[in-house]
């Protein structure tokens, strides 16, 4: 957000309020848990990654880092390992993507960065699932590895695809609002 009248530091009150707002949206959506994969009803889809990615596109990779971490913290308190995994997955999904987009702010750049985010997300999710499943289920490591192809891969691909579809749908109206919002803020000459 550029502000014509202010020479403020990075941590302006506007920035804090707006990141807090995105964090709230991500927290609220992270508690919406929908089973999308009939073969594995215990794997739930939550839409919070979309909010973080949108924030990352609008405000850059640092915003994505902050909002990913803050919005997963409530989960760390009720499900420590699950919360950490969630944090790492959202980071993998949003941060490199937001970074790439900040370098190339074009339509192609947007698509490339979303694909990058999706691929990194899938790899991270599967890798961490291998590590974490033994904490939740009395299964040997080999059984989890056997789950990759039939369950973990298709579930995470589905999740990434849904994320990207909704992001594409919401990107225009949301960034439009954000733009008119920061325009109105600079018009009101906030210091």
């Amino acid at each position, binding site marked *: 957000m550029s502000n014509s*009248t*202010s*020479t*403020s*530091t990075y*941590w*302006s*009150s*506007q920035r*804090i*309020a*707006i*990141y*807090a*707002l995105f*964090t*709230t*949206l991500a*927290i*609220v959506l992270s508690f919406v848990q929908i089973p999308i994969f009939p073969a594995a009803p*215990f794997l739930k889809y939550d839409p919070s990654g979309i909010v973080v990615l949108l924030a990352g596109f609008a405000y850059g990779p640092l915003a994505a880092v*902050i909002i990913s971490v*803050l*919005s997963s*913290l*409530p989960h*760390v*308190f*009720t*499900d*420590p*390992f699950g919360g950490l995994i969630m944090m790492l997955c959202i980071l993998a999904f949003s941060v490199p993507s937001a970074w790439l987009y900040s370098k190339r702010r074009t339509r192609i750049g947007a698509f490339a960065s979303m694909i990058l985010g999706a691929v990194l997300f899938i790899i991270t999710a599967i890798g961490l699932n291998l590590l974490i499943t033994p*904490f*939740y*289920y*009395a*299964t040997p490591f080999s059984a989890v590895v056997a789950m990759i192809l039939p369950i973990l891969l298709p579930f995470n691909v589905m999740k990434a695809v849904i994320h990207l579809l909704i992001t594409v749908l*919401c990107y225009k*109206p*949301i960034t439009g*609002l*954000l733009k008119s*919002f920061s325009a109105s*803020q600079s*018009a*009101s*000459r*906030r*210091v």
Partner: protein
Amino acid sequence: MSAAVELSHVSFSYDGERDVLQDISLTVPRGQWLTIVGANGSGKSTLSRLLSAVSAPTSGTLTVLGNTLFDAGGVHRDAYIRARHALSYVTQNPEDHIVGATVKDDVAFEPENLGFAPCDTASAVQHALGQTGMLTFSDTDPQHLSGGQQQRVAIASALAASPDLLILDEPFAYVDVAARRSILSSLSAQHSRGVTIIIITHHESVAALGERVITLGEGRIVHDGKPHDVSADESISAERIPVPVQNEVAQPVLAAKNLTYAYDGRSVLENVNVSVARGEFVTLSGPNGTGKSTLAYLLAGAFQPTSGSVISHAERIGLVLQKPEKQLFAESVREDIAFGPRNLGLSADEVDARVAQMAEFLGITDLLDSPVWNLSGGQQRLVAIAGTLAMKPDVLILDEPTAGLDTHVEARLLSVLEALHEQGMTILMITHSLAHIRQLATRAILLEPPSYAADPSVTPEDAVTAPLSRFDPRALTTVTLLTLFTSFALHTPAQLGLGVLVALAYVLLAHIRPSELVTELHGFWIFIAFMGLFNLFFVQSGAELVQFGPVRLTDAGVWAGVLYAGRFALLAVVAVSVLHILPPARITDAVESLCGGLKRLGWPVHELSLMMSLSLRFIPILTRDVRSLITAQELRGGTIRHGSLAVRARSAQALIVPSFANALRHADKLSVALDIRGFDSSATRVPWRVMRMTGRDWALVAAFVVYLAAVVGLYFVSFV
């Protein structure tokens, strides 16, 4: 000494073309009580943002409390920060000011930011709450207060840091007469101490309180002089009301019978009996927090009562919520008014006719094609009311419809209501104004405050709040997190038994009642059960216990089921117990303090922690906004909660943009509040809740070390 405020040839323009403020020169000496009046759109709000060091003018010189904020050299940011530290500004929307998780934490925010010593903050909080009559609510979550009570909290927060200049925008809009009197007396006390007071208002009666009145018109000062003497006593009591004052009538069209409504375990209404007969114009008044707004929701069928009933013979009830402009959701005025009639299944021609008729009736025809977002507050109010009237209700309920409107729009709205009543509409209107009751009512209802408010020894919190943790939040947070992680190391029955003991200890420490524990755990049951069952059937090693068909249970499977479900049950019990005595805001404080070392490495620890606590505060605000948007759509025949998935998806999609726009507006107002309330990165904040490790905290840490040692010990024992 310099003047409190000095403007010299100040102009302001949003678009660079039209000046909202034109060449204003104004000097306010220190210690003056000034009132600024003017219609909607006269530039009052813009001027108040300049005076309170929020915005910069386009040209001219602006000096506040001796700090030159803006001159030919442009913006002086340091001067802005100094000026903000010495002034307080209360805007029209108190809920957007609230930062703290409890009333007293909110009032403490500015003193903390300005670096007051903890004991000074505590006495400032005590004093400010006493002056505004909010002491009994000091431990309440501000979100649970009524609009008028939140306004009083905002004023208490403004007084807490002893400002030299106090700027209040329409401070009495939602406040009852008793609160108004107590706020006025605290303002007088401030004034006699030499504090400069500037009140921005629509109302002449408020102007009468001060020493000087400035009238703004089209961005210029059109009058500057002494106030007229309007010594009106506005207090509402039965003797002063010319019409009958009674709660019930025979043959009602709408009646509440023994109505009780509780929210979050707190009763908002207790055994209320009110009724309205066809053709009446009934006003409903009562002190802040008596549940008037809740009653309106219940009567309109938007809320379900906890007990008692609402009996309605109305064909259609229209409900105009408090600040209904917040529930506008369509893009243009025409679309928003048309939403209800269209949901009634009317033809396109009929819908157009109704929209045109309502717009004409309310005098907003020329606005029909404008986007809703660009209208002034008063215009938005009229659009929202038109949207409800377009449904042609036979009973209309309005919740403080004129609050915050200028006298001109207010008069227009009141005459519209009078005309509707003459046409036979039954009207129930919530109001704090004696003048409205005298002008419009055929009968008045005065609600009594709920029983707890009458008894000063009982605060409403007593019933619902458990004793807060007396542990240092840092110790409790760290030990709890480590305990949660340790649960995953439990493998043997003895270890699991030990875990159960630890969870039990948490339950006892938290004083959480078993019934509360069960309710708070509701989100976890399915997950725990799934964990157990999955492992029960998945693990096939060990000796077989039962086999029928493809299902085979083994002893190892049973143990795996118990162990994995048990671990998660322990996790859930520990987390729920701790959250019961340690609110998220204090966990955030603890984490900030624990990460204090990172601050020296240049990490923005305080900013992140503030962001976290603000985002937790946003959760109820945003969910309530979305819920009232949905309610507003439903009252006008919208279908978010019903219908096919496609229909609901479309309705949900229609909600995304207005919800997000609302959320952005909250964020904007919140950022103004943060600036005004002394938040800036350079300031050194001193938290008023002192964290100190005491004997009990070290005992807690020691208990955890013993637990960990026992778990590790049992691990080796299992190999012996």
